């Protein structure tokens, strides 16, 4: 298990190298850049800007410089306001991480609950309510959900705030979390329902009931643990979805997170920040996937690494 963990963590390095190479050459194949404006700059200015940001020299030289910097944990520098990408991440990532973590908790808790309720009331009212929510959640993307929630709960009922993010202030937290989390929640609910239905038909659940255990013990100790395993497999894609979802939600609710920063850098073609943040996202996702895989082994004793 330890050897496996170390191997998986070490395997992230070539992956990140591949991402860095890909984004480097993608971004350097683009004509134009952050220094383009309506009025053309003088040749001397362009020359100095290129020197300043390491954009002179051949493509191979630039690539070598970029990789060398990366090896020293230097993610590059913004071409538009000179800030190191590391500082940008340090300032904006905590906000995105809070949003992501709260949304993740929301999706998992409500998804599991809805799915379990639906499974225990198969073809009953609870099932239909659960399936209804799951279907609606899947059909309403966050960029539709956000305006609809704002129209209903901010403009009509004045319950919540429309902009910003503040941990602990539910006026600012509820709407972004719901708008971002409904899709993964419905996803988790669907899978939980299916796997719970499967588990409840197993012999060991019948045995547990037959030996007279309370229903709660049967569900919590015998059924729920096994029903969780398929849910774990989709956590990886869900985490990736939260990152791209944050691009949309942070823009909709004007939250100064990393997603906003990424979109801004794309809009003004700040390639330094684009490359740095892409690499950072790749690293976050790779580490999350390793954690999910390890959790998988913890939850399912049949899996040995």
């Amino acid at each position: 298990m330890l050897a496996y963990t170390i191997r998986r963590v070490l395997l992230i390095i070539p992956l990140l190298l591949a991402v860095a190479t890909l984004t480097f050459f993608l971004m350097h194949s683009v004509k134009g850049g952050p220094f383009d404006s309506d009025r053309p700059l003088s040749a001397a200015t362009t020359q100095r800007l290129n020197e300043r940001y390491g954009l002179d020299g051949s493509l191979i030289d630039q690539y070598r410089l970029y990789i060398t910097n990366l090896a020293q944990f230097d993610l590059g520098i913004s071409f538009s306001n000179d800030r190191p990408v590391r500082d940008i991440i340090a300032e904006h990532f905590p906000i995105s991480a809070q949003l992501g973590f709260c949304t993740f908790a929301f999706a998992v808790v409500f998804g599991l609950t809805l799915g379990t309720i639906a499974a225990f009331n198969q073809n009953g009212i609870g099932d239909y309510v659960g399936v209804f929510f799951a279907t609606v959640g899947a059909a309403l993307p966050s960029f539709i959900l956000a305006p609809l929630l704002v129209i209903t709960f901010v403009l009509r009922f004045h319950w919540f705030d429309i902009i910003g993010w503040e941990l602990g202030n539910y006026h600012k937290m509820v709407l972004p979390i719901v708008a971002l989390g409904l899709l993964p929640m419905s996803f988790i609910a669907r899978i939980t329902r299916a796997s719970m239905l499967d588990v409840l038909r197993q012999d060991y659940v019948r045995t547990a009931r037959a030996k007279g255990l309370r229903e709660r013990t049967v569900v919590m100790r015998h059924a729920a643990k096994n029903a969780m395993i398929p849910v774990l497999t989709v956590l990886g894609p869900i985490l990736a979805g939260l990152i791209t979802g944050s691009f949309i939600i942070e823009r909709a609710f004007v939250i100064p997170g990393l997603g906003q920063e990424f979109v801004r850098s794309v809009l003004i073609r700040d390639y330094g920040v684009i490359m740095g943040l892409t690499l950072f996202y790749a690293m976050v996702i790779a580490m999350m996937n390793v954690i999910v895989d390890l959790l998988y082994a913890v939850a399912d004793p049949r899996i040995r690494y």
Partner: protein
Amino acid sequence: MAANTSIAQPFDFAAEQIHTKQRGLWAQAWQRLRRNRLAFAAAILLTVITVVAVLGNTTDFVQRHDPKEQNYTDAHGQDNIDREPSGTNWLGTDGLGRDMWARTLQGTLFSLKIGFGAETVVVAIGISLGMLAAFGGKVTDNIVTWVTDFGYAFPDLLMIILFRQVIFGRDWPIIGTGDPQIPGVPSVLIATILAISFVSWVTICRLVRGQMLSIKESDYVLAARAIGASPWRVVRSHMLPNTLSTVIVAITFGIPTRIFAEASLAFIGLGVPPPSASLGSLISDGYAHLQSNNLLVIWPAIMVASLMLCFTFLGDGLRDALDPRTKR
């Protein structure tokens, strides 16, 4: 001696042939789909939306205003900005006096073009690479599998944004602003379609590879090979048709995913530049004017939600219908 009239006649097997209608896979699937009311209703609604969106941009009867036309005052000299729905403007007007019905139809058509166009590219790449992985050597398979695993774990939208930067940042022959262009197809549309297809093929590639690998080991492929069918014939007439149902279901779920991707891009400000509009850019525009006129968001939002729901129901229905094991 009276002739025995009841001489046993030879049994006429030909007359006893049981006349049951032979129904093929597709006929059976069609019947199962028709019995699924939700899926069938979704299919009808989708057809109606598509037909109206296509007609809207060609006939005045369906769409009485030009989506780009700005009327600050109506025929009676009244203010025509942010109007409620009325007889002349069925869904009201926006802040520039443009007809929302016409704008929504224009956006719907654009989004449908993106959906179908991108899905075509996705299927073409996905099937080719999936088959390459299944039939190529070990090395090819490993490379394709590695790339698909990577693309699967990486957020789609992030990759789409990066690739979009590359495509939009340069004049390409054919697709870009340079010459020659494909006549009648705007370069924005092609560029967006290519950007979306860039990474989305991995799902279908995985599906096709997995199906091909399992079918390759099946008895009927062995039988076909044993009677001397050429490899190409085995693939074309035995293996491809058996992956078809999986691919059809994947396409039905794929189209709304592409529409969703484009709309997400448009919402964060990376969509098609005006005057062209997609459902996503309409929602994005409307979101900025939420407090003055929330109808601007509601119409395109209803349209996106109906498209998503219809494709989901149709996909679920098709999956049940195309699976020969569901007998009913």
